C-alpha cells in the first residue's frame, strides 16, 4: 500500500508546484530593498514618499549604492504601491532602517502615517523614527551625504545606535514611539535630524529632540537639553559632562566621562499634593583637565563632584521648567511612574494631568561619583 502513499505525495507536490505556482516565492536579487523612507506632504496628493533603495550592482567589487525614488499617493499604502509604476519593482520593507518625517506632517499628527507601517506584516517595528529639521524630509535623503557609508539610511541607523555614547538625541524606534503614544502618563519624543554644511558637503547630523503632544509635534529641545531629558528618563549609558571650574588662570574646563547612570523617579504624595524626587546617580571618570588644577586629590575631587552636581541639577531643573512652561506635556514619564506606583491615585488624577504637570514640584537630587582619572594620575604641569 505504500506506493500509493508515495504516488499521493508526489501528486500533491506536483499539483502544488505546477498548478498554483509558488506564492510567496521571490528571489532575493529581485527585491528592491528599502533602506529608509522619508514622508512629506504631497503637492498633488496627500502624501509624498521618498524612498532610498539599495542598489546592488553586478561585479565582484561593486559596493551597494543608493537610489532615491519619490512618489505620491492618497494613502501611505497607495503611495508606496505607486512606486511600481515608476520602476516596476515591488519594494521590500523588512530591512528598512529609518523613517524620516517632515515637521509639517508631524505637526498634523503622525499616528495615521505610522499606522500603515505598524500594521503591514512585511515591515518591522524596530525601524528608527526621526524628525527632519529641514523643510522637507525628502531632501535629507536627496541632499544629504553619508560620511562613512554610501547608503544614508544605514549611516543614520548606526549614528542612532551609537548615540548611547553621546546622549544628545534619544534613540527611538517605531515600537517605542507607539508604546509612548499608547500609554498614558508619557508624551512621546523623537530625535531630530539636520543637514549641516561642512566644507561644501551636506553632512547629516542628529542632534536634539522633537517634543510631541499626543501625536502632534509641538517643539524642540537642543542637544544639551536632550542630555538632561535622557538623564531623567534613565536612558544615559555614556556621554560627557563638561564642567568649568574656576582656576588660577581663569576657568579650567574639566570633562567627565559618564560610565553609568541610574535615575529613579520617586513620587511623594501628601494629601492632595504630589511631589517628585528625581534621584540621579552618575558614575564618571575624569577624562580631560584643561589646566593645572588638582582635581585628583580628595579635596579637589570632592569640590569637582559638588560643582558638577550643582550644574547638572541646574540644567535639569531648567529643562523641567522649560517643558512645564513652553510645552506642558509630560515627556519625562512622571505620570506613568505615578500610575505604576499608585494606580488608584492615578485614576483620580489622570484626567487633568497636563494641568497638574505645569505646577508639579520636582526636586532633583544628583549624585556624581568620580571613579578614576583615566590613565594619568596627576595633572600635566607645564614647567619652564
Amino acid at each position, binding site marked *: 500500500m505504500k506506493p500509493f502513499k508515495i504516488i499521493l505525495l508526489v501528486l500533491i507536490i506536483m499539483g502544488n508546484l505546477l498548478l498554483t505556482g509558488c506564492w510567496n*516565492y521571490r*528571489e532575493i536579487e529581485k527585491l528592491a530593498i528599502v533602506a529608509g523612507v522619508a514622508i512629506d506632504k504631497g503637492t498633488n496628493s496627500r502624501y509624498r514618499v521618498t524612498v532610498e533603495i539599495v542598489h546592488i550592482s553586478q561585479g565582484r567589487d561593486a559596493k551597494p549604492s543608493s537610489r532615491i525614488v519619490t512618489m505620491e499617493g492618497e494613502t501611505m499604502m497607495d503611495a508606496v504601491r505607486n512606486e511600481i509604476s515608476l520602476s516596476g519593482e515591488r519594494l521590500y520593507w523588512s530591512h528598512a532602517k529609518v523613517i524620516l518625517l517632515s515637521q509639517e506632517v508631524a505637526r498634523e499628527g503622525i499616528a495615521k502615517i505610522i499606522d500603515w507601517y505598524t500594521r503591514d506584516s512585511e515591515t518591522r517595528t524596530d525601524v528608527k523614527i526621526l524628525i527632519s529639521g529641514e523643510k522637507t524630509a525628502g531632501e535629507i535623503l536627496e541632499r544629504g551625504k553619508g560620511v562613512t557609508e554610501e547608503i544614508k539610511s544605514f549611516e543614520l541607523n548606526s549614528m542612532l545606535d551609537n548615540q548611547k555614547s553621546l546622549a544628545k538625541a534619544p534613540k527611538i524606534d517605531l515600537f517605542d514611539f507607539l508604546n509612548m503614544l499608547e500609554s498614558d502618563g508619557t508624551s512621546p519624543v523623537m530625535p531630530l535630524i539636520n543637514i549641516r554644511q561642512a566644507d561644501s558637503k551636506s553632512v547629516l547630523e542628529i542632534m536634539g529632540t522633537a517634543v510631541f503632544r499626543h501625536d502632534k509635534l509641538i517643539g524642540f529641545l537642543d542637544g544639551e537639553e536632550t542630555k538632561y531629558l535622557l538623564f531623567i528618563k534613565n536612558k544615559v549609558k555614556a556621554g560627557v559632562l563638561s564642567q568649568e571650574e574656576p582656576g588660577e588662570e581663569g576657568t579650567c574646563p574639566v570633562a567627565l566621562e559618564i560610565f553609568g547612570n541610574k535615575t529613579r523617579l520617586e513620587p511623594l504624595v501628601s494629601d492632595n499634593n504630589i511631589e517628585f524626587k528625581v534621584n540621579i546617580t552618575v558614575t564618571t571618570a575624569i577624562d580631560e583637565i584643561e589646566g593645572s588644577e588638582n582635581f585628583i586629590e580628595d579635596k579637589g575631587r570632592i569640590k569637582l563632584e559638588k560643582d558638577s552636581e550643582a550644574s547638572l541639577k541646574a540644567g535639569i531643573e531648567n529643562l523641567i521648567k522649560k517643558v512645564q512652561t513652553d510645552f506642558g506635556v509630560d515627556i519625562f514619564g512622571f505620570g506613568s511612574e505615578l500610575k505604576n506606583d499608585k494606580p488608584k491615585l492615578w485614576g483620580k488624577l489622570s484626567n487633568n494631568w497636563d494641568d497638574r504637570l505645569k505646577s508639579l514640584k520636582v526636586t532633583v537630587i544628583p549624585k556624581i561619583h568620580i571613579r578614576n582619572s583615566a590613565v594619568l594620575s596627576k595633572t600635566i604641569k607645564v614647567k619652564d
Partner: protein
Amino acid sequence: MTLKKQNAVKENNKDNMAELNDLLLGSSLEENIALLRNIFTNDETLVFRRFQNRNIKAVKCCAVYFNGMIDPQIVNKDIIQPVLSSDLKDGIDIHNLPEELQYKVIASGNVNLENQLDQIVSSILYGNTLLLIENCEKALIISSNGWETRAITEPESEKVVRGPREGLTESIIMNITMIRRRIKDPDLKLKFREIGSKTHTRVCICYIENVASENILKELEKRLDQIDIDGIIDSGYIQELIRDAPFSPFETVGHTEKPDVVAAKLLEGRIAIISDCSPSVLTVPYIMIENSQSNEDYYNNFIYSSFNRFLRTISFVLAVSVPAVYLSIVTFHQEMLPTPLVLSISASKQGVPFPSFFSLLVMLLIFDLLREAATRMPTLIGQAVNIVGTLVLGQAAVEAKLVSAPVIIVTALSGILTLMNLKLIGAVIMIRFLFLILSSILGIYGYIFGVIAISLHLLSIRSFGVPYMLNVTTLKGHNWQDTFIRAPWWSMKLRPKIIGAKNLVRQRTKKTGGKKTG
C-alpha cells in the same frame, strides 16, 4: 502475469530437486558415472578419474570432481595416491570397502559416506571430491575444496586510523575464523543454512548464546526460512529480504566489512548473518544511532570519540537541512537575514538567470553525478573527474553567472556533510530532495513539515522489534552511554538493554586507575 510465471518457475525447480531426492546410487561404477554424466550434461569441467589399487583389482575407483574447485594437492596426495599405492591386502574386508577406505586409507580431515544422489551432487558442486567404488552403493565424499581467495585486506569503505586493519573476505570460513579469533568462547554459536535454489549459498547465523535475545533469533530464523529465491549473490540480497520497513530509505539491517565490528556487535547481543561469497556481514537489530557510530570510537579517547560522534549526528541533520534552509531563507524569509548578509547574497546573485530552487536542484544532482562517477571510475580517472567537477562546474559556472556562489557553497557543504555518514548516504540524498521541494512550496514551514514527517517515519519503524530511534522516555542510565556520546569504558558496566540482551553485565572491572592518590 509475472506472478504466474514465477510460480511456474518455482514448481519447476521443486520438480528437479524432487527428482534427485528420490535417487540413490547404484552398485555399478560405470552406471554411476553415466548417471553423474547425465546430471552434469555438457559440463566439461567435471573430471572423472578412474584408477585401481595396484594390489587388488577389485578396488576400482573413480574420483569425481570439478576442475578448479579442488585443491589438486589434496586430490593427488591424499586421495588418489593412498588408494593407488597402499598395500590393501592386510586385513581389508573387501565387502566393507568404503568404510575400510574411509578409516584406513584416505588421508583427509573430512570424509563422509553418502548414497543420496542430491547430497552427492551438491557436495561435488561445493568442491568436494567424490570417490565412487565399483560394486558399492555408497560413495565417499572427501572434502578437498581449494580455490583461490582474496587476501585479507583493509576494506576501502571502512578505513580506520586506529584499530585492526583486517577486513572480511568472500570466504565464509575465513570470515568465521576471523570472528572466532576475537571471541573464543563456546557460547559463540554458528548455525548454517543454505539459501538459494540455484546458488545454494551457505549462510551462517552467528550469535553468542545467553547474550543474544532469543526472540530476535527466532524472528530472524523465521524470516530467513521464508526466503525462497533462486540465488543469493551478496548478503545485500538477504538484507533486503529480511528487513523491516521495506520502503524506508533508512537501513534496518546493518552491514560491515570489519571483523572487529562484527565481534563488538555480537558482544552487545546482536546477531550476525554471514553469507558466503560476500565480504559484508549483516547485523541485526540495527538502529539509527549505529549509523553514526564507528569502530574507532571505541578505541580512541572517549571525549574525542564523543565529539566525533556528535559531529556525525549533527552532520546528518545539516546535510539534509542546509539546502532546504538556504532556499527558504533566500526565497521566502529574507527578513530573517541580517541586512549586510542580504546585501552580499543579493550581490552574488545579480545576473544569475535561473531561480534558486532550480539551480540548487541541478547543482545537487550534479554533485551526485560526480560522486557516482568517481566511485565507479579507476582512481586515476577519478582525479580527473574531481578536477573537472571542481574547476569547470564550480569556478567556471560562477564566473559565467550560471549559478551563484552561495549555491555552490551550499551544495559543496551539503555534499561533504553527506559523506560524513556513509551508511546514511541513500537516505540523506532522498530526504534532501524532499526537503528542498517542500521548502520551495512553503519556505521554512515546508521544511519543518518535512522534519516532522521524517521524524514520525523514523519513530514508527523498528528493526526486529527494537525501536529504530530508541524510546527516549524509557531509556534508563546505561542505555545512554553509547548513543550520542561514547561513555568511557570503565563506566559501561552493562550491555545496552535496548537490543534485548539478556545477560546484561558486561564487565566487573574495579576502577583502579585514575583515582586520586595521596
